[in-house]
């Protein structure tokens, strides 16, 4: 791995202050706004989770989906100035290019998770250490399809259109996946929700109930979304060699 290339990628992300602080701060502020008042709800209807735990993971799903898709925003911005073509006439491999993008996206996601964990702790969220660890790992796995989606969007959209596209996708995935409020356990909305990776992202919170939140269905949904989006990402990248 070319570590110098990666290091500058990370440096650029952190230096984009407005992006950096907004993408970390926004979910955090929303969390306090929503969960503070519901601090004493120990069993949120339909979930079995305390309100601070539920909303913590809800906002983590919101914040981390945004972090993963914002990888696409950076790709679109690079393409718009022709940097993508400049990189293609260098020996940088496709693999190293995507690895740098993925690591950057995941680092933003991890920072967002850490910030919300800290906020959750301050509102009384508690669970055994191994539950924290298991939950974190599940969240990171459920984010894989979003990384691929970010890459697809980054190579197909221009900077003007990717903002709304990204905001819209995150809102839709969050709404249908149950980030904002618990989905009822039956009905169309729940059936649709279960087909989305965001649903399983939110379900990872149920680790603290001693359950196996993913189940076979969850793994299949994540695997299928990942496979399809990776194929799309590859072809979007391959086709995207022209002047824009």
């Amino acid at each position, binding site marked *: 791995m070319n570590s*110098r*290339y990666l290091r*500058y990628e990370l440096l650029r992300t952190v230096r984009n202050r407005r992006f950096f602080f907004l993408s970390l701060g926004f979910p955090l502020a929303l969390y306090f706004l929503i969960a503070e008042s519901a601090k004493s709800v120990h069993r949120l209807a339909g979930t079995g989770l305390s309100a601070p735990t539920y909303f913590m993971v809800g906002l983590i799903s919101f914040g981390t989906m945004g972090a993963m898709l914002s990888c696409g925003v950076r790709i679109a911005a690079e393409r718009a*100035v022709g940097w993508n*073509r400049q990189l*293609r*006439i260098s*020996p940088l*491999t496709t693999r190293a290019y995507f690895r740098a993008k993925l690591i950057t996206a995941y680092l933003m996601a991890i920072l967002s998770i850490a910030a919300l964990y800290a906020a959750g702790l301050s509102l009384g969220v508690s669970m055994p250490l191994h539950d924290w660890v298991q939950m974190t790992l599940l969240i990171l796995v459920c984010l894989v399809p979003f990384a691929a989606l970010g890459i697809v969007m980054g190579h197909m959209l221009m900077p003007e259109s990717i903002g709304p596209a990204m905001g819209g996708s995150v809102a839709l995935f969050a709404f249908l996946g149950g980030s904002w409020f618990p989905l009822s356990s039956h009905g169309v909305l729940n059936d649709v929700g279960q087909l989305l990776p965001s649903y399983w992202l939110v379900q990872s919170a149920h680790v603290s109930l001693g359950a196996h939140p993913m189940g076979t269905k969850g793994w299949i949904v994540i695997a299928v979304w990942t496979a399809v989006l990776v194929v799309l990402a590859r072809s979007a990248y391959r086709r995207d060699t022209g002047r824009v």
Partner: protein
Amino acid sequence: MTAIEASGLRKSYGDVHAVRGIDISIAAGETVALLGPNGAGKSTTIDMLLGLADPDSGEVSVFGGPPTAAVDAGFVGAMLQTGALIRDLSVRELVSMVASLYPSPLPVDEALELTGMSALADHRTQKLSGGETQRVRFAVAIVANPKLLVLDEPTVAMDVEGRRSFWATMRSLASEGRTILFATHYLEEADAYADRAILMAHGRIVADGPTNEIKAKVGTRTIRATLPDADLDALRLLPGVSSAERRGEAIALSCADSDAAIRALLAEHSQARDIEIVAAGLEQAFLELTGDGAHSEPSAVPPAEAVT
């Protein structure tokens, strides 16, 4: 050894035939200008030579292999026509980021020095002027320490001083045995800095040879003057003049050698007034060369070619 070998290249975008079957062979160490008016197909050709576009038909090889292999080996440095810089890095950081991708790059400081960017090395890329951005893009191309350097209209956003130092650096890079291919629509640039020029118009190569020969072909200038009583047949016999016309009181002399022609004209007709010497725009020269008047589109004469 050949640096670039292309045969039968064609590329269309929908019903725009950008490149219509061209053959190019460039030996290692040559400095070649790809000369042609806007829309001639220069950038499309360069995209195919660099592996950024797949030709619809035809073959390209760079240093004996496919362009992508030469690119992956780090043999190629390029400055594309369109493009800016990614933001949130200093000039030095950006050039260093690119250098890290190549197997044997130039030292970053040397690339900055050669492009005159040392003083601005710590500036953020998004704060640079257009001309400075072009210099950094040049630094990005040369830090690769490439065997083949490809530049697509590199001097467009540069001021006079920028151009001068740019070409000085190019000269020294060429003298190190690198192969250089640059696209331009300025005949003067091709003439001054290339050993050889390939002329393109409407997707075809219309001439390919030493720059002085090309210049003789397209470098016609026209002398216009007010000269009421001149005899056209006598004017045609003046040294350097190839044809003469009259429009009312004014005459127009097409000249292969306008320097000789103007001296002779003034020696014989010192009363000539309102004298103007104009270089034919490349577009016009190409249309004459290709005998392809049907395609004449209005196109601005590049300022560097208008001599008055």
